[in-house]
């Protein structure tokens, strides 16, 4: 107590105990070569990715006469939402002239069940592989991983036959089944690695406490794995929503997902190329993954980095 009292004046007094010269935090130049390089490169990269998006947004808001002038970078002189309305509700694909809306709802009906089914199964798979080592679990895991590296094209024809035999070919359910199965290897790997990173003693403690396979899964593991579920959900949603190959192979025109419909709109050969409608349609199709990412992006990063933080 005494000491602090006698010390106090000397700190506040004008005759500071510090010597002249560098003191405290080192000042940093804003325009250092390091900053210029870092921000310059980041700026360039951002520009590279954002410029096409800018062109698309701008073009989709212009009327066709204005587009024919050819100034693709100039902002619209007269903003019109006509192309967006047309892309959503009026554009023709084949016989149907109800725009992308049909494809949108098809995609929703395909994506939601596929995501739920694949995540539900993959998380249980991953949990079993991580915590309940059974005879042959390593072999099973290896087979699953190899599955992730086989190009999809190789399997398309056999799957067409299998779906035909099951009576699911051309239906939404067939596509859901295909998406669920093809999401399995990478999703299982994701969940397994996450569950392996959780402390093993937690699992042991739960077993001592008498919890069984499902009780440990639902009451111990699930509450601890929100980040990885979000990551998995984002990967699956964007992956399935953006899928074109399976959509075009396994469905029929009235069950086409949005991506296939988009292709049919953009690549239709009759009549005038309506660039504004095409741009609007593309933006509409890409909006869903974009929105999903913006909403859960923070959790996404947290989930990817989850292993770094000790549970």
């Amino acid at each position, binding site marked *: 107590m005494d000491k602090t009292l006698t010390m106090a004046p000397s700190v506040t007094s004008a005759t500071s105990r510090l010597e002249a010269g560098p003191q405290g935090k080192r000042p940093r130049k804003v325009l250092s070569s390091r900053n210029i390089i870092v921000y310059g490169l980041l700026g360039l990269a951002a520009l590279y990715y954002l410029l096409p998006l800018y062109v698309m947004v701008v073009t989709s808001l212009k009327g066709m006469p204005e587009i024919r002038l050819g100034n693709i970078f100039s902002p619209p002189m007269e903003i019109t939402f006509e192309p967006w309305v047309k892309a959503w509700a009026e554009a023709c694909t084949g016989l149907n002239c109800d725009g992308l809306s049909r494809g949108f709802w098809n995609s929703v009906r395909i994506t939601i069940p596929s995501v739920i089914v694949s995540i539900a199964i993959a998380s249980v798979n991953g949990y079993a592989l991580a915590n309940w080592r059974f005879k042959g679990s390593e072999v099973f895991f290896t087979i699953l991983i190899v599955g992730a590296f086989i190009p999809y094209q190789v399997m398309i024809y056999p799957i067409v036959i299998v779906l035909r035999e099951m009576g699911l070919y051309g239906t939404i359910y067939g596509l859901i089944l295909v998406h669920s199965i093809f999401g399995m290897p990478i999703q299982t790997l994701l969940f397994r690695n996450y569950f392996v990173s959780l*402390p093993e*003693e*937690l699992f*042991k*403690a*739960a*077993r*001592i*406490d*008498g*919890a069984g396979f499902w*009780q440990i899964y639902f*009451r*111990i593991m699930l*509450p*601890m794995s929100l980040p990885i579920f979000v990551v998995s959900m984002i990967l699956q949603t964007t992956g399935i929503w953006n899928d074109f190959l399976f959509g075009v192979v396994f469905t029929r025109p009235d069950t086409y997902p949005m991506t296939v419909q988009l292709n049919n709109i953009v690549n239709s050969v009759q009549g005038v190329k309506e660039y504004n409608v095409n741009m609007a349609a593309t933006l509409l199709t890409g909006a869903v993954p974009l929105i999903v990412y913006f909403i859960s992006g923070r959790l996404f990063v947290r989930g990817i980095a989850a292993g770094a933080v000790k*549970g």
Partner: protein
Amino acid sequence: MNANVSINKSNSVSIRELSLSFGSVTVLENLNLDIRDGEFLVLLGSSGCGKSTLLNCIAGLLEPTEGQIFIKDKNVTWEEPKDRGIGMVFQSYALYPQMTVEKNLSFGLRVAKLPKDEIDRRVARAAGILQIEPLLKRKPAELSGGQRQRVAIGRALVRDVDVFLFDEPLSNLDAKLRSELRVEIKRLHQSLKNTMIYVTHDQIEALTLADRIAIMKSGVIQQLDDPQTIYNRPRNKFVAGFIGSPSMNFLKGELADEGGKPVFKTNGVTFSLAGYETSQPLTAGRKVTLGVRPEHIQVDGDIAGEVHEAVVEIEEPMGADNLLWLKYAGHTMSVRIGGARRYAPGTKVRLAFDMTLASLFDAETEDRI
């Protein structure tokens, strides 16, 4: 000698001819161990010696390849962990992070679908014993290391079991907390009188807590005895060197006969073995190692018996004790003396060895003679 005692008292845990191997790696081999009712048994060994593996086998978290495990005279070899009547405390606490302390304590009871008032009663009792009542509504992340380990012990406590298993419970704590909780675990054992099996690599924990210590090396129990016996009469050189810090001084030499009495000779000096107890004949010419603990060597003062002279090389004052490193007959030896007695390097000192507390090991087998 302990085998005789265990027949009279009932065994709480019995391990019979237990073997465990992962593929081609054998971790435990033909291990036998009887743990008495209410006993505090410490499994001590360096990492990789199989002590935690053995504990996991007792808990039912690992399946043995061969052998049987009995808990309370019931063969539990094929039983689930929850049906074995055990509670376990882990090194990393292993508290469920999303549950409050109260939920952590009651999880096992809720899984077992016990009535609500019974759960509340047991949680309150455990919280009372461990003095964690104020923490009941908190999450594990809001607790300090010591508090977390208390909760982990509480989780074993509420299960109302016969046998407690501790897997290096204090290793994640800092030195001060470790010694505090060590006393607390001992107090807990004294009041509960449960059987406790405690795995550690810390010899201080082993010596202070144990009724009996089982020292393990490569899956084999080297010695199973009370701490006093382990310390003063180690069965082999490994045990002698493992227990004690600084470790025992080992002098290589051979036995000889001098005037009809056995002596120990090394590098030209002779030690009388008067007072050394052994059932084996001390035949002259046998190659042996003499082991003497640093605190069993007297320095200067009114020392009794045979006197040797040595030179102080290094002095390590440690407060209560003072550790001298001496050069004697080509050997470097450590000697522990009182903290107040100081010696400058180079000082000549007189030594006397207490042969009643020394150990002789065969140079070949490294077993105690």
